[in-house]
């Protein structure tokens, strides 16, 4: 409504007209706004009409857009998990089928013809398993891990090779929450179960270039970058070092020295103050010319602890080991605390394929890994999770992997020898172990000069224990024969230094012990050889579904009832684990479906709220429109009447 002062004393014609024009303008404007609302269906035609509501609408729209995306992600995850669930169910059924075949065939009354026929069925099951393993959802392989566009399983002569990885495919299913939507082939079939786990801690040296991110910290909790306080007793001074923004240990040392210099201390080796990498090459040390130096945390920080320099020392405060992690670009020369390693060749055998891999040109760990990985042996070398050594994984199911020496000690040095001193005897022979005769000698070693000694391996747990027993027995008998690990390939090697020529160096069975078979020592050296190299019994076989089925197939073709039973019980265990996996995947799929439902409900709720804020209530709007219309009509009517009134009409 037009606002006019009411204390006017006289009304001019212009005023009357202006007032009418003004009130008509307002009436028409509100009518127009109502009409605009009705035609757009929006409560607000512009933001400034009601900034508070507009701001709420904006935020709700934003929330809705986010939720819609999350909903789409959940639908994607749900689809993927459902497909995975179905596939895992099929695998479970196939394994049950295989188990039934094994049970039926593990019976001596079954004829070999029937076994041969069933063996064909087993091959068919392997094919079907590979097919399911290679199933795609759209253009993505369900079980390839993050190598989602590479066919994950391929059958080759030696077995089934897994070409995927163990990575997760993820989807953003809630604010701040990513969920894995897949099961990788390694989980599914145990495809990568066999590995040569690096046994050597390669212990990379700390250098100025070592990144803080690559150190596990003195407490094994990483390195937090905060401030520390360094205090000197002579001269009595102290300073604070801000280590935020440092990236490498070189930066840390520079910062500490920089802060010392800023505090007026002469800095450098032999000067009153010097921070440096410690002599052991695994931490930091702070040296002072006299008195003590101490380092303390500031305000509850943990930086000094993580850097291993918390404390007080006279003269030199030698920091603890900050546990530098092995990284791809760790130099070979930096291994073993900076002592480095001289690399030669290793011998890698995977199934029928065997290669001597020359690592002498490797400058970094990455070079070693690349050389092994690109040798075409179906193996993958990588840095282990702890960041201490190298693992070699056999990605082919059904083949045996062994990594040994090629006339040197490189494999042992790098900790990637499949049989080494620490290898458990129980792990040899595909997990069957080595049997011995309790309380009795297991074998006799006869040297070239005819002298001999008896060895009992009863109670030995590791390969090194066996070597020790042999060497001890040889020493006790005064026979100049020594045992060690083979310098070519794997296995145990006996060296005859007796100089005799009476007969060949040989190992003989005693007391019907099977120990020499288990150790690969059931051998006689050549007449001229002074060295007897045992067979490799420590080759690793992937304990996967495919291995078990291949074993079953082989046993059935051979008609080996015992082996069929063994394979059958392995498959039975796999049925159980696949059942478990099916349960887990099923639960994940159901959880995702539930999430889908409640997210849909949440989206609907937001939509309703937004509609409440933004959309027009037509009943109110129509009423408002009619009100505005009536007001305009009334105004027009009174206005036209009022303007017509004039004294002129009544005179003359």
């Amino acid at each position, binding site marked *: 409504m037009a606002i006019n002062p009411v204390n006017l004393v006289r009304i001019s014609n212009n005023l009357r007209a202006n007032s009418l024009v003004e009130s008509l303008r307002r009436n028409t404007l509100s009518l127009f706004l109502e009409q605009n609302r009705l035609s757009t269906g929006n409560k607000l035609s*512009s933001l400034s009409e009601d900034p508070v509501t507009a701001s709420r609408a*904006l935020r709700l729209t934003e929330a809705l857009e986010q939720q819609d995306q999350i909903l789409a992600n959940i639908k994607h995850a749900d689809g993927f998990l459902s497909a995975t669930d179905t596939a895992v169910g099929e695998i479970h059924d196939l394994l049950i089928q295989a188990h039934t075949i094994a049970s039926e065939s593990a019976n001596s009354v079954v004829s070999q013809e029937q076994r041969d026929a069933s063996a064909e069925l087993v091959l068919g099951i392997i094919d079907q398993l590979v097919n399911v393993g290679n199933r795609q959802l759209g253009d993505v392989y369900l079980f*390839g891990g993050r190598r989602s566009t590479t066919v994950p399983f391929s059958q080759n002569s030696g077995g089934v090779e897994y070409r995927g990885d163990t990575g997760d495919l993820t989807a953003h299913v809630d604010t701040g929450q990513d969920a894995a939507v897949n099961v990788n082939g390694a989980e599914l079939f145990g495809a990568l179960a066999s590995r040569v786990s690096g046994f050597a801690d390669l212990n990379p040296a700390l250098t100025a270039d070592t990144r803080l991110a690559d150190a596990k910290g003195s407490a094994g909790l990483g390195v937090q970058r905060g401030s520390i306080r360094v205090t000197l007793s002579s001269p009595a001074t102290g300073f604070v070092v801000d280590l935020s923004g440092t990236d490498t240990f070189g930066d840390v040392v520079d910062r500490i020295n920089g802060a010392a210099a800023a505090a007026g201390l002469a800095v450098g080796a032999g000067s009153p103050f010097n921070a440096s990498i410690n002599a052991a090459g695994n931490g930091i040390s702070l040296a002072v010319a006299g008195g003590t130096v101490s380092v303390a945390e500031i305000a509850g920080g943990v930086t000094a602890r993580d850097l291993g320099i918390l404390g007080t020392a006279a003269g030199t405060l030698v920091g603890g080991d900050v546990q530098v992690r092995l990284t791809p670009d760790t130099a070979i020369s930096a291994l073993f605390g900076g002592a480095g390693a001289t690399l030669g060749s290793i011998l890698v055998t995977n199934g029928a394929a065997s290669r001597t891999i020359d690592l002498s040109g490797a400058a970094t760990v990455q070079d070693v890994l690349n050389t092994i990985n690109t040798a075409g042996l179906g193996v993958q070398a990588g840095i282990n999770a702890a960041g201490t050594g190298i693992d070699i994984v056999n990605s082919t199911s059904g083949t045996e992997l062994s990594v040994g020496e090629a006339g040197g000690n490189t494999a042992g040095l790098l900790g990637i020898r499949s049989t080494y001193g620490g290898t458990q005897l129980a792990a040899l022979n595909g997990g069957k172990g080595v049997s011995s005769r309790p309380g009795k000698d297991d074998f006799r070693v006869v040297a070239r000069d005819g002298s001999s000694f008896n060895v009992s391996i009863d109670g030995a747990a590791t390969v090194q224990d066996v070597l020790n027993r042999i060497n001890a027995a040889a020493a006790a008998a005064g026979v100049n024969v020594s045992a060690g690990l083979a310098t070519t390939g794997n296995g145990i090697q006996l060296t005859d230094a007796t100089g005799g020529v009476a007969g060949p160096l040989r190992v003989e069975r005693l007391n019907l012990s099977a120990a020499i078979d288990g150790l690969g020592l059931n051998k006689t050296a050549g007449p001229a050889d002074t060295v007897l190299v045992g067979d490799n019994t420590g080759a690793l076989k992937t304990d996967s579904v495919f291995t078990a089925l291949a074993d079953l197939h082989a046993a059935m073709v051979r008609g080996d009832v015992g082996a069929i039973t063994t394979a059958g019980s392995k498959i039975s265990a796999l049925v159980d684990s696949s059942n478990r996996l099916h349960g887990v995947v099923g639960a994940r799929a159901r959880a995702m479906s539930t999430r889908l439902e409640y997210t849909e409900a949440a989206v609907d709720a937001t939509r309703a709220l937004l509609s409440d804020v933004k959309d027009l209530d037509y009943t109110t709007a129509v009423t408002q429109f009619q009100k505005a219309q009536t007001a305009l009509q009334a105004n027009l009517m009174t206005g036209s009447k009022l303007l017509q009134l004039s004294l002129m009409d009544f005179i003359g």
Partner: protein
Amino acid sequence: MGLITGALQIGRSALLAYQSALQVVGNNVSNAGSASYTRQTPVLSPAGGISLPEGYTPGGGVTLSALKRNVDGTLENRIRYSLGEQNSALTRQQALGRIESILNELSDTDLSSLLQGFFNAFSTLQNRPHDPGTRGIVLTAGESLVREIKRQRSDTLALRDELNQDLEGTAREAAGYARDIAELNAQITEAESANPGGSSALRDQRDDLLRKLSELVQIEVREQPNGGVNVYVGNEPLIQDGVNRGLTTTLDHVNGEPRTVVRFADNNGTVELRSGRMAGIVETRDTQVMGHVDALNGLAAVLISEVNKVHSQGQGLEGFRDVTGSYDVMSATAALNTAAAGLGLTPGNGSFQITVRNLATGALTTATIPVDLDGLGADDSLSSLVAQINARATNLTAVATSDNRLRLTAADGFEIRFGQDSSNVLAALGVNTFFTGIDAQDIAVDTTLTANAGLLAAGRSATAGDGSNAAALAELATRRLDGLRGQSLTDYYNTIVANVAVRGAAAKAGVEAADAISASLNAQRESVSGVSLDEETISMLRLERAFQGAARYSSTVDQLIQEMLRLVG
């Protein structure tokens, strides 16, 4: 004087006076529709001078002694002030309405939706990192976002240019009014020196012009004894003692932005604009319009740097064979975090990794490149960075180009990938980045990506199903950023929009308040100065009757004379 002539004289005075008064009424009636007209009231007073033979002096009839202009001087001042306020509020509201329509919020294609859509596309990419189609969607979403930011900027700048032109036109209009007022001053002074109060029409014209001028700029008017007015703008005189200083404009460039400035024509001094249309234009242009451009620039700058910081940590389906950074440094030997290097995003102390992949074997070789910017000893410059890369990485060549960019070229059969950049130097130099440019003017999706979507860094490894970097990019939508004082990008933009809305609402309220005041003052003015036809009709009747009376009196006197003449004759 004889008795008879005296009596006739009285009649004559009445006839003349009422005739004149009727004319005044007629003038009022004829101006009843004229907005700027000031109602005049004839003042009739008894004339003296004629004595009766008995010695009494009843008076000499009636005379139109004055013409009263019904005007309230203080009210005029208040009206002029309110007109200024009203116009500045209106201008502000109009410009904010324009900005609001530039924002185009509450629609499906507004910037906030595009921003959210951009990050949502990354979330979809996390689901399907291997898929070229999804990569295309991300790039398209990026381009739509960029286009919208640029459109808003150019539309806002067009609005600024319009306001500049508007200000120029308005200043010209104001100069014209000032000139006319000065001329009227001269005419009124001249007319009133001969005949005080005899220039009501001229004064009406001048009042009208003063009102028009005060719509454009707040003025202070002081009337002088000679009838002229002095007009002040701000603290300076515009018209004083008959001298008009004149108004003009110049097109200045402030920080490279064209700005029209209003100046006095005589000495080019700037005019202090307090309210009125011109003040509204200047205020809106400098705070609202340029404020919105600044806000867009801020948004674009943070968007570019934050997205690039994350994107440069990732790897695409394929690596780079040959990549040149999109940002150059001003000096290849200046430390990268100094002003002498002049990078938009300042890198910090840290390191990054370059992984060179052998295309034939898939073998990866990673080199860690330290970026020493800790302020201790020599800090890294572009050229020392190039030297570091060449010393540490194999099968690639790094060079600083002639225009001071970083260029990395893989050897034949190799490709380059990046990762773990704790220094942000890759984002700062524009290597492996999503956006190029530094603000809303030149923001663009990196053409390297549009040419080859496989380079879009969805993962942090060389595997097709790795969507981890896409996840980190999608998460940027809601991540609180230091560069935005703890707000997320979407929050920041929502704040921009909310500010425009609140200012728009405030301007609207301001206009309504100013309208109300102005309407009230005008009503008061009309109440004093406006013509009421009914009143005038009554005056007319009254004067007609009086005239009739005077005529009757004159004819009576005439009869007396005739009687007397008959006696003589």
